[in-house]
C-alpha cells in the first residue's frame, strides 16, 4: 500500500515543463559567484598553506637525503683516513720495533765484544804478570846459585887442599847443585 503511494508520487509528481537543456541564467550567475568566492577562500585558507607545506616537506626530504648522503661520504672518507692512519701507525711501530731490535742486537754484540776484549786483556795481563814473575824468580835463582857457588869456593879454599878433599868437595858441590 505504502509502496504504491510512493510510486505514484515518484512517477507523476513532475512539476515544471522544463527540459534538461534549459539554461537558467540565474544558476549561471550563482555558480560563477559561488565558484569565484570558493576559489578565493580556498586559495587563502587551504591551497596556499597546503602547497607551502608540501613544498616545505619536499625541500626537507631532499635536504635530509642530501645531508645523509654527505654524511655517508664523510664517514667513508674518515674511515679511509683512519685505515690509512692505522696502517701508517702499524708500519711505524713495526719500524720502531725493528730499530730497537737492531739497536739491542748491536748493543749485545758490542757488549759481547767488549767483554771478550776485556777477558782477553785480563788473560794477557795475567800472562805477562806470570812471565814477569817467572823471570824475577829465575833472576833470584840465578843470584842464589852464584852466591852458593861463591860460598862453595870459599869453603874449598879454607879447607886443606888435598886430592881427596878436593874430590870430596867437588862431589859435594855437584850434589848440592843437583839438589837445587
Amino acid at each position, binding site marked *: 500500500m505504502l509502496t504504491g*503511494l*510512493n*510510486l*505514484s*508520487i*515518484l*512517477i*507523476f*509528481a*513532475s*512539476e*515544471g515543463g*522544463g*527540459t*534538461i*537543456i*534549459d*539554461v*537558467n*541564467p*540565474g*544558476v*549561471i*550567475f*550563482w*555558480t*560563477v559567484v*559561488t*565558484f*569565484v*568566492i*570558493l*576559489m578565493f*577562500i*580556498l*586559495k587563502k*585558507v*587551504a*591551497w*596556499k*598553506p*597546503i*602547497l607551502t*607545506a*608540501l613544498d*616545505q*616537506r619536499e625541500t*626537507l626530504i631532499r635536504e635530509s637525503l642530501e645531508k645523509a648522503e654527505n654524511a655517508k661520504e664523510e664517514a667513508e672518507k674518515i674511515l679511509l683516513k683512519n685505515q690509512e692512519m692505522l696502517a701508517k701507525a702499524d708500519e711505524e711501530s713495526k719500524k720502531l720495533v725493528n730499530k730497537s731490535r737492531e739497536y739491542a742486537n748491536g748493543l749485545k754484540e758490542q757488549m759481547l765484544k767488549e767483554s771478550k776484549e776485556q777477558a782477553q786483556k785480563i788473560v794477557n795481563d795475567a800472562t805477562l804478570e806470570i812471565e814477569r814473575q817467572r823471570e824475577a824468580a829465575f833472576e833470584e835463582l840465578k843470584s842464589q846459585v852464584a852466591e852458593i857457588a861463591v860460598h862453595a869456593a870459599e869453603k874449598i879454599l879454607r879447607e886443606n887442599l888435598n886430592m881427596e878433599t878436593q874430590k870430596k868437595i867437588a862431589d859435594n858441590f855437584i850434589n848440592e847443585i843437583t839438589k837445587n
Partner: protein
Amino acid sequence: MINTLQDTVAVADTVHKSEGGSGWILDHVLDSHKIDFEPFGSINLPHLSLFGLDISITKHIFFSWIVALILIVLLVVVAKSYKKSLIPKGITNLFELIIIFVRDEIVKPTIGKGYEYFLPFHLTIFFFVLLSNLFGLIPYSTTVTSNIAVTAALAGISFVAIQFGGIRSNGFFGYFKGLIPSGMPALLLIIIIPLEILGLFTKPFALCIRLFANMIAGHVVILSLIGLIFIFKAFVYVVAPVAVGFALFIYLLEILVALIQAYIFTMLTALFIGMAVHQEH
C-alpha cells in the same frame, strides 16, 4: 481542511502531469525551487531577482553551496593539520594524494613552467567538480553538475582562465596573433580567422556538454531502470532484482564516472591553458 486542499492540488497536479510517462525522471534530475524530502515534505527556496535577472536560489545552487561549504571545512582541517606536523595523518593523506595528483599529473605536465600560478584554480575546479559529481550519489541530494547551466558556468570560467592565461604570458596582441599559424597566405586567413575564433569557444563548449551529459546520463539510466519495475508491475518479482542489480552496477559506475569527469574537466582546462600559454607548440 488544509489537508483536503493539498490533496486536491496534488490530485490536480497528478492528473495534469500524468500525460508524460517519463516526467518524473526529468523532475528528479531537473532543477527546482524546492528541496524535496519525499515523503517527509519539502523546503521552498526564496525567489530573488537582480536588475530584472531571476537569481532565485534553486536546488542546484543550494547544493553547490553545500559542496563549497564542505570543501572549505575539510580543506581548512587539512591545512591546519600541516601546521601541527608535516607528516600527513588521517584525512590529510587522502587530500594530499589528490592535491599531489592534480599538481604532478595534471597541471605540471600540461602547463609546465609557471604552473604554480594556475594551481589553486585547477585544484578548486577539480575538488568542486569531483565533490559535486559524488554528491549526486547521496540520496535526497542532487548532482549539481548535471545542470547544464552549472557546467556552462564552469566552462565559462575555464574559457576566461584560458584567455587570461594566454594574454598573461603572451600579451594581449601577442596572444591573439599567436592563435593564427604563422606563414599563412592572406587568402586562407579569411577561413582561418573565423575558425580559430570558433575554436576558442568550442573547447569550453565541449567541456560544458561533456560534464553535463556524463553526469545526467547515469542518473537517467538509474531512474529508468528503477522505472522499469513500475512499468512491469505484473512481473515485479522478476524485473525488480534485475533492475536493482543493473541500477547498482550503474551506481558504482557513476562513482568511476564522477572521478573520471572531474579529472577530464581539470585535465582539459589545464591542457587548453597550457596551449594558450605556450603558443609555439
